[in-house]
């Protein structure tokens, strides 16, 4: 295109085509528009209204737009001219984030730029293929003068043509199918092979990183398009250039799709090798997902027991291969929980403790660190026997006291889980020799003693542990229990029969003054308590004002004073989330969960943090892991259903500056109360109550209650009510209810509900994820609806509606 075409382009003239399909004036009416369901005609009406030929009616135009949107939210007629967003279009946070991100990038890229210019340029001509044709048998001469154009050449529009040109009409042709004859294809499948290796000699590190990332992106795209083979190839290319965990992880994901379990496992292993300190949940979830899956297969293949060799993956497997990540994550968590002994809220529930020790092992030489991490991983998977071996190997190769202590302690945990109490005691003692008065070995030894019914020794160990940290509830419980047993056994004089309680060294007392409960410290504690409360309130105030950074400072000070306050952790996590420091947020949530394993806020915020991490790290994996966390939350809700368990009140007031989040937290905790009381509130007045009621009905599979619920809801507010709750199961449950309970008596209501339900957010998404059974159910419902005569709607309406659903 040259300048001539620019000036000659006639396309900026106003289209004058609307006269051709005129609309009677009486159709420009609210009632008519409301009743009209012919989308094409409505668009015409809108065109007339917008053109202002029949007068300008802003409200009617808006009404017409809304009606069209109701019928088809993606209608082209709704597209409006927008202007670029400015800082005013964003909240301050968002805008700051955008500008800061760009500024950081600008600074980084400028450094890169300078470095790139500094680099000595060396010609790597050897790698470049030769010039085309120089060693090619085809002569350029024969090629030029190619017969490509020998067919009758199309002529462009003449200039006169353009005068008559009607953009509207021309554009409207889009909806008609293109029926043009095309030339026969030359299909050439030979050599259509993507090489899995790339020559990277002579490339700088920087170039390699760029290249590796690009190949990974290509893989991601192929994955999204469903070409898993191609995706695997590109990931392979990416890791060939530069081994990156993300690429391995993604490849594993693609391999899962292709059901190549061996490859999945080896990729997962490699991720762990590359990044043993990787605490990022998503990857671990991915890895565990993969392993859990493979393990499940191993189990189904006949190799039972937690110590069964996980590599014995049966290739023939079942066809019910786990299709997506969500299932995988579930699989891993379920396999984890089925193999691991119930933790009963003991302080050393494996998952948390492992990560902690992982962090401590920074000084381990790589192979040993790897062994240890493999051990940790196996422990998490519940394969205590295998973990034991790994730890043993690590112990034999290592001599440094601090880490050795951890290794012994970990091995002791394995022994404990395997029920081998005597070896556990031996290991704990060794660990304690290396590092006297470390908490975990003490607790483990105490448990082991207890299980061997050597209560006196157990008592002593628990007491010692409590001196170190008085906040361990489990230890307190055990002490009480043992005290009772000992009184029963030895009578009132039981204390005298105890072995000598190890005098806690003065140095250690000093070390743990805060924890000891001598009277003069009580006063100090009181003042600390006051300071703590004031700091906390200050922190909350700051959060309300949006000064998250300062709030973090306050909360951190709080934690220095009192490290066992769950609410502080969750609040600080909130601040971190706001500051986009997701990794720290997650850590805080984990700490909170350590303190209170059923804390909803902590779960929810961890999910948020995971989401945040994912957005940065692996866009591919966003949904499943969130679902993973959420399922964990749901499970937790079920688990904590027993009314006898004392629930600690969250005394701190939640700072409600983010509505959506607050709601979700609230609704989830309310949901729990519902499920415990097993009653369903059939008169919901807002979205939470509706959500709870719906959930309760669904979990009880109580369609009658659901029907009652749906009756009470005004149909037009259904989308708002159901919005956050909508998923495939809920949808199919609603469908079932409509079909079985409401259809016969109130078809009008059913129609109304259906008419509004599809406008719910994420509806199309949910629709996509329905399984065939659920789809069939939906089709059935519409069939039934069709066969009912009702004055509220016509057959046509049903058809229109059905199109939205099926």
């Amino acid at each position: 295109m040259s300048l001539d075409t620019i000036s000659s382009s006639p396309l900026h003239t106003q289209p004058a085509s609307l006269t051709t399909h005129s609309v009677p004036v009486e159709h420009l009416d609210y009632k008519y528009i409301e009743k009209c369901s012919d989308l094409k005609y409505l668009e015409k009406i809108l065109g007339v209204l917008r053109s202002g030929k029949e007068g300008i009616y802003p409200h009617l135009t808006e009404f017409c737009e809304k009606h069209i949107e109701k019928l088809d939210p993606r209608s082209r007629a709704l597209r409006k001219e927008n202007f670029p967003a400015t800082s005013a279009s964003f909240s301050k946070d968002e805008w700051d984030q955008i500008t800061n991100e760009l500024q950081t990038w600008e600074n980084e890229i400028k450094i890169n730029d300078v470095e790139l210019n500094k680099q000595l340029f060396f010609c790597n001509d050897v790698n470049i293929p030769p010039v085309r044709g120089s060693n090619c048998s085809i002569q350029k001469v024969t090629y030029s003068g190619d017969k490509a154009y020998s067919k009758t050449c199309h002529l462009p529009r003449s200039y006169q043509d353009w005068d008559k040109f009607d953009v509207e009409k021309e554009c409207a042709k889009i909806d008609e199918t293109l029926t043009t004859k095309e030339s026969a294809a030359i299909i050439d499948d030979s050599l259509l092979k993507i090489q899995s290796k790339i020559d990277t000699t002579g490339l700088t590190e920087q170039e390699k990183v760029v290249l590796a990332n690009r190949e990974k992106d290509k893989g991601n795209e192929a994955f999204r398009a469903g070409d898993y083979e191609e995706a695997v190839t590109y990931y392979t290319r990416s890791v060939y250039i530069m081994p990156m965990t993300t690429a391995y992880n993604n490849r594993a994901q693609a391999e899962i799709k292709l059901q190549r379990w061996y490859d999945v496992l080896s990729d997962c292993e490699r991720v762990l090798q590359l990044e043993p300190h990787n605490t990022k949940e998503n990857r671990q979830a991915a890895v565990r997902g993969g392993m859990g899956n493979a393990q499940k297969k191993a189990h189904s293949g006949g190799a039972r027991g937690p110590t069964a060799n996980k590599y014995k993956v049966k290739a023939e497997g079942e066809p019910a291969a786990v299709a997506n990540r969500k299932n995988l994550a579930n699989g891993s968590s379920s396999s984890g929980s089925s193999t691991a002994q119930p933790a009963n809220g003991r302080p050393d529930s494996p998952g948390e403790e492992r990560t902690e020790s992982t962090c401590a092992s920074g000084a381990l030489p790589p192979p040993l660190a790897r062994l240890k991490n493999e051990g940790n991983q196996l422990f998490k998977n519940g394969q205590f026997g295998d973990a034991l071996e790994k730890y043993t190997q690590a112990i034999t190769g290592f001599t440094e006291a601090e880490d050795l202590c951890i290794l012994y302690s970990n091995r002791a945990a394995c022994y404990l889980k395997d029920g081998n109490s005597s070896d556990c005691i031996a290991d704990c003692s060794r660990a304690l020799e290396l590092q006297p008065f470390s908490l975990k070995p003490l607790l483990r030894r105490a448990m082991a003693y207890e299980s061997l019914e050597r209560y006196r020794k157990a008592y002593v160990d628990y007491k010692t542990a409590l001196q170190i940290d008085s906040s361990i509830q489990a230890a307190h419980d055990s002490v009480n229990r043992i005290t009772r047993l000992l009184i029963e056994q030895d009578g009132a004089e039981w204390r005298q029969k105890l072995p000598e309680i190890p005098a806690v060294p003065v140095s250690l007392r000093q070390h743990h003054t805060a924890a000891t409960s001598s009277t003069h410290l009580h006063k100090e504690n009181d003042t600390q308590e006051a300071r703590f409360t004031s700091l906390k309130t200050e922190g909350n105030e700051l959060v309300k004002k949006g000064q998250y950074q300062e709030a973090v400072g306050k909360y951190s000070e709080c934690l220095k004073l009192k490290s066992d306050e769950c609410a502080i952790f969750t609040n600080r996590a909130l601040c971190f989330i706001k500051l986009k420091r997701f990794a720290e947020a997650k850590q805080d949530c984990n700490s909170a969960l350590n303190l209170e394993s059923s804390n909803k806020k902590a779960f929810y915020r961890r999910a948020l943090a995971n989401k945040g991490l994912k957005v940065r790290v692996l866009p591919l994996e966003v949904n499943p892991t969130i679902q993973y966390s959420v399922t964990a939350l749901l499970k937790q809700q079920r688990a904590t259903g027993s009314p006898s368990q004392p629930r600690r009140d969250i005394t701190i007031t939640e700072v409600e500056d983010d509505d959506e989040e607050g709601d979700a937290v609230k609704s989830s905790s309310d949901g729990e109360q519902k499920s415990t009381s097993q009653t369903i509130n059939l008169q919901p007045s807002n979205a939470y109550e509706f959500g709870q009621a719906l959930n309760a009905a669904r979990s009880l599979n109580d369609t009658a209650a659901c029907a009652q619920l749906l009756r009470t809801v005004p149909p037009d507010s259904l989308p708002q009510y159901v919005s956050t709750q909508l998923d495939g199961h809920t949808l199919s449950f609603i469908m079932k209810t409509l079909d079985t309970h409401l259809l016969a008596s109130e078809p009008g209501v059913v129609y109304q509900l259906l008419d509004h339900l599809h406008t719910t957010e994420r509806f199309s998404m949910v629709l996509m994820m329905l399984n065939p059974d659920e789809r069939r159910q939906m089709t059935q419902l519409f069939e039934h609806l069709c066969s009912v005569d009702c004055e509220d709607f016509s057959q046509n309406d049903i058809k229109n509606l059905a199109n939205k659903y099926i």
Partner: protein
Amino acid sequence: MSAPLDKPQVVSHSQKSLNYSLFDSKWIPCSAKFVCLGSSCRGTGLMQIYELQHGDIKLVKETEKTKPIKCGTFGASSLQQRHLATGDFDGNLHVWNLEAPDVPVYSVKAHKEIVNAVDGVGGLGIGDGAPEIVTGSRDGTVKVWDPRQKDTPVANMEPVEGETKRDCWTVAFGHAFNDQDRCVCAGYDNGDIKLFDLRNMSVRWEKNIKNGVCSVEFDRKDIQMNKLVATSLEGKFHVFDMRTEHPTKGFASVSEKAHKSTVWQVRHLPQNRDIFMTAGGAGNLHLWKYEYPAKRSEMDGDGEERGVAGTLNLLQNVTLSTQPISSLDWSPDKQGLCVCSSFDQCVRVLIVTKLNRV
């Protein structure tokens, strides 16, 4: 539908009015700089380098050339060199070292008339094989050049003797996923789209979309042909699924009207091939996402495989100016950052947010 703020937003980060006609703008890879190419009012060519500096656009370097420059590409240069290949109004192809832009490092009289479009492959780590530049000109020919070979093109695609020569408006490389395979797609003023296979030296596919083809682009150059977008003079564009070719029906396609005016350019997001931006004659930009169908191919009655086109989803549209947007270029390094030039003599740096969430 998601809430409006969840949609990607196009933010006008900064803009600068210039005193000459802008034809093309390109990010310099691995930098915060971009090049603007155009024609001064005296009828000479201008090549300017701008840099982003704390939210502002600052002129870094300016060079004047004898002929107005129409188009440019970095596609055939290595990341270390970052040489810019340009085509000018006189039919010359030049390759410039931007550090020393006075004398071209490669120069050839490529065409008899204006070079309308240029594209490169084989550099910047994009595309396996030799670095090559393709030029399309008003003289009706499409030529492929290797900067290592002087004076003669490595491939020349022109109509047979006696045939009317059609003005070639746009060219694009694609299918460069290994050493041998490579395709060039060219669009002509009469609506012809031709796909040349450089390995077999043949025309692989032809199609006429009835109106002049302003811009063609593959979603990625360095993979097996996946999708091709072709925009046209009267405001429509077509997306072809290039994976499955039916012996008689060719490639499946979906078309969409966007601008009610010429769609001047299409550019795919380098970080996500399924998102692309079209630039329109009325000064507006449309951001699209291609959604794949459940199955990309199906068997027709004759047992032949036939492609199934997906759907297009408009993510966002903005109006920037009253004049046509002549060029648009995404930053290869920063997702969502793009530069566009328009005929109101303005260059704009835009940020598109939330691209990783769509």
